[in-house]
């Protein structure tokens, strides 16, 4: 359960508050009353972040406070970390149901107020502002929009033409395919490995973690595709959110290409606010780690999300240090840029991402430790995930999608002999496009797991 109808009122109230405050900040700034504008901003941030904290972190803070008290009184050092939201919502202290999409629209509000404070124009029309906050294609799981762009498009939406319709519909179909044909079956396949406390073999642990990375990528980018597709049908172009992050050659690039709208939000409103890279290497590393902890915390109120964020920050810091190390050694730099060097860095990056996303997926720390010990220690043990892997038949479907994707990318960029058979103005002529849809639909049915899996990112 992640939604109550009454939360519509919450969104409405927050929209009104932010709309008024935005205009207030602009007015105060126009009258050059800096102090007043700043206090408006603070009030707005307090409301937005306060609401987010209440719904997302109250249980976590409360539970940990209680545990700290109990822990110190009984001198029991074993802190059982809280699980996920489902677990939190079940806690007897207080059951707060998370409003759907709150993490996303709160971040949009924060962006709005900050940008207005930094000198951008506020939105005068309440209807326009409300559409920005409650634009359904991106309301539930992003991408996190920028209001300047959105408002400009809202004023002049692209008329729905046939090419636009096909583009939007293709995006929706592509997203649906990623979700139904790829993410769900993989999710169903790897779920047992994350739920068990019994020993995992290295192969199982790595495959489960890699499976989760692919699942979360297909799931989330699939959702974004569908959101962008539905927005396109209304003539609005939403920002892209993923740019093949998993093929990145280092962790910093990966984070620039993964959930790009969140990344750029964090960069603009956390990292730069903290001082960014201006005050020396140490401060920069500190800022990176703090930003990524915020990123982890944004995903959920739980210790393993915080640790996950910290690890990402550390990874990026390490990469930055490695880069400055290389800068002084041109020979080594050459080697690292060779084919082998590139391959090694890609593999290392993926391994790091798998290991840390394994932590992200684990319900709590003990499960994560179990996974990690499997990854590091239990080599040469039976590869039990092989059976469900073969049974699901997911590998050829994944490969087919990858090949299809590579082909379309190639065709997009290079003129070929095939063009007169398949191209017609846009990338594909309609007979080809409809044929692709047929194939996608059948493969979706073919790989349907026995139970429907909800979107991973709806919980954030």
């Amino acid at each position, binding site marked *: 359960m992640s939604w109550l109808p009454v939360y519509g009122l919450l969104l409405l109230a927050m929209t009104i508050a932010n709309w008024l405050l935005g205009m207030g900040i602009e007015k105060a700034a126009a009258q050059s009353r800096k102090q007043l504008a700043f206090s408006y901003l603070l009030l707005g941030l307090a409301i937005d972040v306060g609401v987010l904290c209440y719904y997302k972190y109250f249980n976590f803070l409360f539970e940990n406070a209680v545990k700290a008290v109990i822990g110190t009184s009984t001198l029991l050092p074993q802190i059982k970390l809280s699980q996920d939201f489902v677990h939190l919502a079940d806690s007897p202290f207080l059951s707060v149901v998370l409003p759907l999409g709150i993490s996303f629209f709160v971040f949009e509000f924060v962006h709005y107020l900050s940008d207005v404070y930094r000198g951008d124009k506020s939105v005068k029309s309440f209807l326009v502002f409300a559409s920005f906050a409650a634009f359904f294609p991106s309301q539930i799981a992003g991408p996190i929009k920028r209001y300047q762009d959105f408002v400009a498009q809202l004023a002049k939406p692209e008329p729905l033409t046939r090419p636009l319709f096909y583009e939007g519909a293709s995006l929706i179909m592509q997203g649906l395919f990623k979700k139904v044909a790829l993410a769900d079956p993989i999710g169903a396949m790897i779920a047992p490995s994350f739920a068990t406390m019994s020993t995992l073999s290295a192969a199982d642990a790595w495959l489960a973690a890699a499976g989760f990375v692919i699942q979360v990528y297909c799931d989330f980018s699939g959702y974004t595709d569908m959101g962008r597709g539905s927005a396109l049908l209304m003539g609005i172009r939403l920002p892209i959110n993923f740019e093949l992050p998993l093929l990145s050659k280092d962790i910093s690039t990966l984070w620039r290409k993964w959930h790009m709208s969140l990344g750029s939000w964090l960069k603009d409103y956390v990292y730069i606010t903290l001082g960014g890279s201006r005050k020396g290497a140490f401060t920069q590393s500190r800022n990176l780690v703090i930003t990524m902890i915020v990123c982890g915390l944004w995903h959920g109120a739980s210790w393993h999300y915080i640790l996950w964020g910290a690890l990402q920050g550390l990874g990026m810091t390490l990469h930055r240090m490695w880069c400055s190390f290389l800068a002084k050694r041109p020979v080594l730099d050459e080697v690292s840029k060779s084919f082998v060097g590139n391959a090694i860095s890609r593999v290392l990056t993926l391994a790091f991402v798998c290991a840390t996303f394994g932590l992200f997926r684990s319900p709590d720390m003990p499960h994560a430790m179990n996974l990690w010990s499997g990854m590091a220690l239990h080599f040469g043990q039976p590869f039990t995930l092989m059976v469900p892997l*073969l*049974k699901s*038949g997911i590998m050829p479907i994944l490969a087919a999608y990858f090949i299809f994707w590579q082909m379309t990318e190639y065709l997009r960029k290079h003129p070929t002999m095939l063009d007169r058979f398949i191209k017609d103005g846009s990338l594909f002529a309609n*007979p080809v496009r409809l*044929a692709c849809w047929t*194939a996608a639909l059948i493969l979706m049915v073919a790989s349907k797991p026995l139970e429907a899996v909800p979107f991973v990112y709806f919980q954030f």
Partner: protein
Amino acid sequence: MPNVTKTPKAIKDAGATADTSIDRLEALAAQSKTTDGKKKSVWTTIGKYLVWQLIALLVVEMVLACAGLGEEELFAIDKELGMTHMTDKSVTWRKEGYARSYLNWDGLRESDVTLAKPPGTYRIALLGDSMVEGLQVPLEETFGQRLQKDLTQKLGRPVQVINFGTSGYSTVQEALLMKRKVFKYAPDMVLLGYDARDMFENWATPDQSLANVRPYALKLPGQKLVIDSSSVTTWLKTPRAKFLTTIGWIRSHSRIWGLVSAAETEAGFHNPVYATLMALCTQPGKTIRKLAAQARDPKVWKDCFDGLIAMATPSFKIQFFDPPQKTVIKDLAVSSETGPAIAKQSAVGKDLAVTSETGPAIAKESAVAKAPAVAKESTIPKEPTVSAADAAANKKAASIFLKLMKNTLDALVLDMQSDCQKHGAVLCVQALPSRATLAPIAGMDATTYGLDYEGEVKVLQTVCAKNKIPFVDALKPATAYSKQEQESLYYSAHLTAKGHDYLAQVLSPFLVERISSTTGGH
């Protein structure tokens, strides 16, 4: 100059028919583009669409082949038996457990078996329905192969077990298959497996599902046993059968069809949306007219919506994990007492019936349809609620029907025994451990015409005792098991590897004794 005059006309045409379909629109748009005087015809465009769709389907077939998906069709249409195993066909079972099998040139899983019996070998032929067939586990784990290994060791001579089990078979189909195929392999023993409701399936009306197309058998008092395949030949004239026959090659080769067939077993014809889609394939004209007439009724739209939801929702959830709907169960419970009164179809009951091919609703429903023909004195009310007098009449009709079915089973088994004797084989009968008794699925009917599976087994035992046919009850030992152990023997309807192990262990001493006693004199 002609180009100038032609182009606006084409555009005007496009505008006039803009709302017909995308294809048409595309066609006209393409037409208006051609400026060199050569008009592209609509047919070229439609052809283009079709060619690309075909390419997509072929690519999907290839991907599915790599993925090992879509090998879920295994029934070939048969004029006499209704259906048999396909030949030279790979089958992958995914609904319960996971097993890949290959049906050889004769539709057998044991691909290395030859027609000629190797000298010195004792051959056992297994007959039965899906429980015997055991497609849910790999061949080596089926009770047949376990027995082969076990008996070879215990008897100190080669024993070969060949599995002729086929999903959905009734006793009459098994008898016919034996005559046609089993004796070619010269078995020394035929072990007939009896599963729940087999005796009612001997008199069951074919429906849309191929697994439910069966010949009739009937033994009237004082008459000879009649085995009649006219039900099958009649069924073959239905649009559905014609459709399936037409696409015969596709059915045995296409993996996309395999997916359709799996979805059919899952959602079945009880899903109105699926049924309509299939009707569109089989009888397009009639269905479209019917739909047009129905479209005015808002209830139809609601049903259609519900059907779509049901199709999209994972089936196992609906069937097994939802709390059973009380009212429906009560309905069914009443109906099984009163027999023919439940002409009305209950959605939940039917869904459950589909999950195990031999489910109660199908057998009952079909029996209902035919019961009046046999027992003419009974009055069959159309309403599910029956008056006391009607209920009494129904009960009487049911008991007459039950008696007829018992007699038919008796005659069939006797017939099989004499057939076996003619071919130098011994007939033995086993009562299979049906899930219906041991670990019943919530909401599933336990009885048919007031007879539960244990009752059926008793009938079978009496029949065997009367005809001096060796009988082994493979159900009984499991009844002493704990609930948990019993459930570990099954997937949703069929035996797990553990279940097969159990069955082999129960059968082994019985078979050792039978084989030693019959071959001891040699």
